[in-house]
Structures are given as structure tokens and as C-alpha cells.
């Protein structure tokens, strides 16, 4: 049975193909259109999925959309009705879009699908899954567990913002839910907006900013904004928010409570913004911990599968793991809306078609390497056509030369095998660096990625060595768990640094691997496994043999505002537009100094800032 899952029309459109219960291919549309968080119909991603499987569109048994448009419209209508006459401006903006297109999503989908193959009876094959059912299915059905507790948390789908339940074999039972407008995701987004970042994309920046601050406002948030119960259920005081009726997240009462208007993105970050970030992060962790503890008290399972955008909050995930209520946690790597495409397809296979489920060893995401790969001959011809000058090396030399470049503190673009599905680069489309270098973090942030200097980088570490460097001895293949750098790897605190605050603390080396150690000694760990990414594992092994350190800086292969690179040409353009010094594409090795200066690009101003 061949099932295509689609998520689209909000943000992060994606397509995924499931054949007989196996995820064969999955990709986000942004990687093909080169438009970050592209919300459009994922036509290119669908074409790629079909091509990867070597089938035509007519071979599909079902196409499943990841949410139910009528239910979403019902929520919209009832919300406007509940707040009327307030909210007319928002109504005037939203309703025409719905009446023109979104309400008729079935026919819109049908028309787009006809452009792929107009001989297929799409009407008969189209199915719709619930938004949170898609999230829950993407988490549980793709997990290695036969049974598990499930927790989905995001901004909002149709009505649900939080759901909890249980999965066994090929069944899902979401038994409790919290509905819009009470949403932990929207609370986090409100502070994302208030601290001057973009909603739906800047949330991870707030998480990265939090360790620079103190949770001074947490009490204020819990006293005024959130009525939080012992079991983790909560209600927001909507008097402080504008998202139900207005075009912004927060209102003037919110400003009064936190002592000022929202930060303009062009304004400098101050200590107050860092304290606000720390506060909302603290409250989020408290809510998530109460929810997971109450789920654990039900005693249904020792496993947990979180999903939804809030499950990308790896700091909260790390705390849930260390809380010890669940023995095993598996987090869907594409926990946001893109992953809804995978979940919708899996839900149709197991729940709609009633097909049995055999949990995959490890998990069903295959390291999340579900995107396009390029054959060696194709890489060469594409690079040559782009004007690149490169040397073709054998398998051993490509590893040894890359290690040499890394030891020389060069920023290395690393393009190997199938592209990752989900927001993280996991060693297939990555920029790598030496984590021992004290200047690597600011150099990568400012010269290579053109992004804010406060942003931390993540370590990729050999799975077998993770416990020797971090306070973690679990698999974390998708960079979704945060753990502290081990005490023995930390450097003694310098009393002169005690007086520093905020971003000034960034440039102080605090461990043997300063480039990946955040100001609170935390790190967003990716464990690298030989069975899912042999070449990346080989590289880390060789780096360890040369330096004694089995860790590399791993950041996504893109500049700020650019989608992660997909093709060898994308990689070469990004290489020529930034200060990446070495590019490794398959077995092709490129040095910046060998390239024609005429091919240099202005990448810094090319993409709209995220």
C-alpha cells in the first residue's frame, strides 16, 4: 500500500511517502523552492518522493492531508463569534483568504495534484487526518516502541493545542486535550514576538537566549498569564494576549505587566529580554514536566513519545529525561508541522487501513536521512557546470583531508548522502568545525552564518563516547536532548568573569569544547551512529584518533534566512557566498582559494532575515 502524506498551507510544507508501512522518502518544500518555511503546496517535494520510490502518481493508494480544514474554519468562526465585535480587523484579513481558498482546500489540493498527474482520480484517494493525530502518529508509529505514552504540544491545529494519550501496536488513543485559545505553544510564541523575534521560526532563538538571563518574570507569568494546575493542565488569561482578535500576539496590558513595548527586531538585545526568555523557558519546562509527571502517574507505559512544535524544545526534553518518570523517550525529529506529513501517512496506513505495525529496530526514521541523494557522477557534473574547481579523492583521503582542515580550524561544508528531513542538519547537509577552538563559535556565527552572536552551536559526538563528554548516556540522534558538559571537561571558573553578564559571558571558554558549550554548560547533543550515517561516524572516529576529541561542531549548511542546502549547486553557492573555507561534496574536495573570485556571491544580504 502506497500512501502520500502532505502538510501545507500554514508553514513548513512537506511531503512524505510511506510504502507498506515504511517511510521511503520525506522532504520539506523549502529545500526545493529555496524559500524558508515555504507554506505553498509541496509539489516539488511530492515529485521527489515519487521519484525516490520509482513510482508514478497513479500508483498511490491514498493521499492524506495533515489536518482538517472544516474543523479549523469552525474554530476560526467560533473564536470570532466569541470575541465579536472585537477582532473585526483580524476577521477582515482572515476570512477572505478562507473564502477564496482555504475553505475549499479539498479542491485546491485536487487541482494541485492534477498538475502532477491529471489522469488520476484524486477525489477518491484524498483523506484528511486531525492535526494532533498527525503529530501523535508521527511520534508513536515512527518510534521503536510497541507501546508508549504520547504527548503532543504545539501552537494550535484545528482546536487542540495539547493532547495526551497512549499508543499500542497500530492504535492511538488520545484521551485528553486542551483546546485553543489555551496553548503553551502560543504562550511561547507570544514571548518570541515580545522579545523581537519572528513567530513560528524565532522560538528556538528564545530558547538559545534563555541561559543568558534569570527567570525573574516566571512568577509574574504564573500569577497573571497562566493558571497552571498540578496535573499540567492550564488556562491562559486572554486579557493579556491579542492573537484571538488582533494581528499581533500580545497587547498593551502585556506591555504594562512586563514594563515596556515589544522589542523591535532592529533594537539591541538587553538583559531584560534575556530574563524574559529565561522566564518563559522556565514556565514552559514547568508545564511540560507537570504534564509528563501526570501522564507517568497513569502508569500506562514507561516510554514517552512527545511531538508537536514544543517537542523541538530540546532543553525541556532534556529535563523530562532527567526527571526519570519515563525510562525511554523518543522524539520525532520533524516534530513540527513538516512532520505532520509523515504522521498523516502513517495514521492512514495503521488507523484508516488497519494495517499492523512492526516497530523498526532503532526507529522508522532511518536517522531522518529521507531526502534526496546524488550519485558521484551527478555531483561531479553539477559542480563542474557551476564552475567549481575540485579534487576527487578516495574514501580514506576524503576523511583524512577533512580532518586536517578541521584541525586547522577551517569551517567545512559537509554534503553527504541523503538530505535530512526536519529542521536539524545531522551530518548530511552540515557545516562542521573544531569544537576545541575558542574562537569557532563567534567566527561561525558572524562570518559563516551571518547570524546573531548569541546563538549556540550543537555538538555531534560518537554515540560510544557521549557519556565521556556529556551528562548523557542515551541515544540522541536527532539533536533533541540538551545535556550538560561533563564536570571533568569543564574549565575552572575565572573569578574575574563573575562580574560579566548577558552576552558578554559568551566568549569565555568554559570547557575543553568551548564552541559547543553554552553559558550554562549545556549542549544540544547529537549522537552519531555508524548504522545510520557511516561516513559521518568515520569522520568523527578519524578526528578523535587525531585529536583525542570525538566531538565536532555541527550546524546546518545554510546562512541566516536560507533553507538548508539541498543540491550540490546550493552547497557551492552557499560556499561561495560565505566564509566556509572547505567544501566536501561526496568525494569531491573544494578549497576556497582554488575557486574563481568571479564566482563569489553576496550571500549576506540575499535572504530575508528569519
Amino acid at each position, binding site marked *: 500500500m502506497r500512501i502520500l502524506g502532505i502538510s501545507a498551507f500554514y508553514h513548513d510544507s512537506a511531503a512524505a511517502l510511506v510504502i507498506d508501512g515504511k517511510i521511503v522518502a520525506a522532504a520539506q518544500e523549502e529545500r526545493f523552492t529555496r524559500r524558508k518555511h515555504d507554506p505553498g503546496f509541496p509539489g516539488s517535494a511530492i515529485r521527489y518522493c515519487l521519484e525516490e520510490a520509482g513510482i508514478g502518481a497513479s500508483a498511490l493508494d491514498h493521499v492524506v492531508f495533515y489536518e482538517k480544514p*472544516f*474543523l479549523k474554519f*469552525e474554530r476560526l*468562526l467560533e473564536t470570532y*463569534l466569541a470575541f465579536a465585535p472585537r477582532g473585526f480587523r483580524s476577521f477582515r484579513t482572515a*476570512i477572505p483568504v*478562507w473564502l477564496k481558498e482555504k475553505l475549499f482546500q*479539498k*479542491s485546491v489540493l485536487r487541482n494541485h495534484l492534477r498538475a502532477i498527474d491529471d489522469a488520476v482520480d484524486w477525489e477518491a484517494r484524498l483523506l484528511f487526518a486531525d492535526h494532533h493525530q498527525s503529530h501523535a502518529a508521527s511520534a508513536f508509529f515512527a518510534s521503536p516502541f510497541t507501546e508508549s505514552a504520547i504527548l503532543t504540544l504545539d501552537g494550535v491545529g484545528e482546536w487542540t493545542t495539547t493532547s495526551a494519550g497512549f499508543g499500542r501496536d497500530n492504535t492511538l488513543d488520545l484521551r485528553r486535550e486542551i483546546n485553543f485559545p489555551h496553548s503553551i505553544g502560543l504562550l511561547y510564541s507570544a514571548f518570541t514576538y515580545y522579545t523581537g523575534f519572528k513567530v513560528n521560526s524565532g522560538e528556538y532563538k528564545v530558547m538559545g537566549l534563555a541561559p543568558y538571563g534569570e527567570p525573574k518574570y516566571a512568577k509574574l507569568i504564573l500569577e497573571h498569564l497562566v493558571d497552571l494546575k498540578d496535573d499540567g493542565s492550564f488556562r491562559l488569561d486572554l486579557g493579556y494576549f491579542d492573537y484571538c482578535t488582533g494581528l499581533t500576539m500580545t497587547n498593551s496590558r502585556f506591555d504594562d505587566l512586563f514594563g515596556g513595548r515589544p522589542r523591535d527586531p532592529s533594537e539591541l538585545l538587553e538583559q531584560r529580554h534575556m530574563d524574559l526568555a529565561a522566564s518563559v523557558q522556565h514556565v514552559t519546562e514547568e508545564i511540560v514536566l507537570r504534564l509528563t509527571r501526570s501522564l507517568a502517574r497513569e502508569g500506562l507505559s514507561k516510554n514517552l513519545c512527545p511531538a508537536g512544535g514544543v517537542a523541538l524544545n530540546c532543553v525541556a526534553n532534556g529535563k523530562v529525561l532527567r526527571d526519570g518518570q519515563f525510562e525511554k523517550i523518543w522524539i520525532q525529529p520533524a516534530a513540527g508541522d513538516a512532520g505532520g506529513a509523515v504522521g498523516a501517512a502513517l495514521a492512514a496506513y495503521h488507523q484508516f487501513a488497519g494495517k499492523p505495525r512492526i516497530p523498526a529496530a532503532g526507529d522508522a526514521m532511518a536517522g531522518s536521512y529521507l531526502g534526496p541523494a546524488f550519485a558521484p557522477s551527478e555531483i561531479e557534473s553539477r559542480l563542474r557546470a557551476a564552475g567549481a574547481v575540485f579534487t576527487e579523492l578516495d574514501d580514506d583521503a576524503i576523511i583524512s583531508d577533512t580532518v586536517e582542515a578541521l584541525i586547522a580550524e577551517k569551517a567545512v561544508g559537509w554534503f553527504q548522502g541523503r538530505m535530512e528531513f526536519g529542521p536539524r542538519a545531522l551530518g548530511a547537509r552540515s557545516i562542521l568545525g573544531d569544537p576545541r577552538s575558542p574562537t569557532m563559535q563567534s567566527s561561525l556565527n558572524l562570518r559563516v552564518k551571518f547570524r546573531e552572536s548569541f546563538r549556540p552551536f550543537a555538538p555531534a559526538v560518537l554515540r560510544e563516547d557521549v557519556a565521556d563528554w556529556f551528562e548523557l548516556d542515551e541515544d540522541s540522534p536527532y539533536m533533541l536532548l540538551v545535556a550538560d558538559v561533563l564536570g571533568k571537561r569543564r574549565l575552572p571558573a575565572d573569578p574575574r568573569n563573575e562580574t560579566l553578564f548577558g552576552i558578554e559571558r559568551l566568549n569565555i571558554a568554559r570547557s575543553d569544547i568551548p564552541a559547543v558549550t553554552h553559558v550554562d554548560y549545556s549542549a544540544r547533543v547529537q549522537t552519531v551512529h555508524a548504522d545510520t550515517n557511516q561516513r559521518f561516524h568515520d569522520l568523527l572516529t578519524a578526528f578523535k584518533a587525531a585529536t583525542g576529541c570525538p566531538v565536532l561542531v555541527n550546524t546546518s549548511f545554510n546562512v541566516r534566512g536560507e533553507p538548508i542546502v539541498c543540491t550540490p549547486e546550493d552547497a557551492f553557492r552557499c560556499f561561495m557566498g560565505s566564509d566556509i573555507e572547505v567544501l566536501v561534496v561526496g568525494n569531491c574536495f573544494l578549497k576556497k582559494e582554488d575557486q574563481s573570485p568571479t564566482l563569489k556571491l553576496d550571500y549576506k544580504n540575499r535572504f530575508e532575515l528569519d
Partner: protein
Amino acid sequence: MSFLQELFAFIRARRKFWLIPILAVMLVLGGLLIVTKGSALAPFIYTLF
């Protein structure tokens, strides 16, 4: 037509028949918003009510 059938099936499944008149008014007003792009709506509402 199939759209209206599906919409009605949805309303019946959700048992939200009270949404029908609201939906009808909103569809008319929303349609007007599209046609007039909002600017000519106020006088029209005035004559209606």
C-alpha cells in the same frame, strides 16, 4: 455542490446546526469583503441593517 454537501455533512457530524445562519451571513459579508476589498462595505451594511 459537493462542497456544500460535505460542509453540511461536517455540520451534521459535529452537531453544530446553529453555525448555519452565522456561516451564511459570514459567507455573504465575506464575499462582499472580497468583492469590495472592504472599502465599500460600511454603506452596504448600513442599508442592510
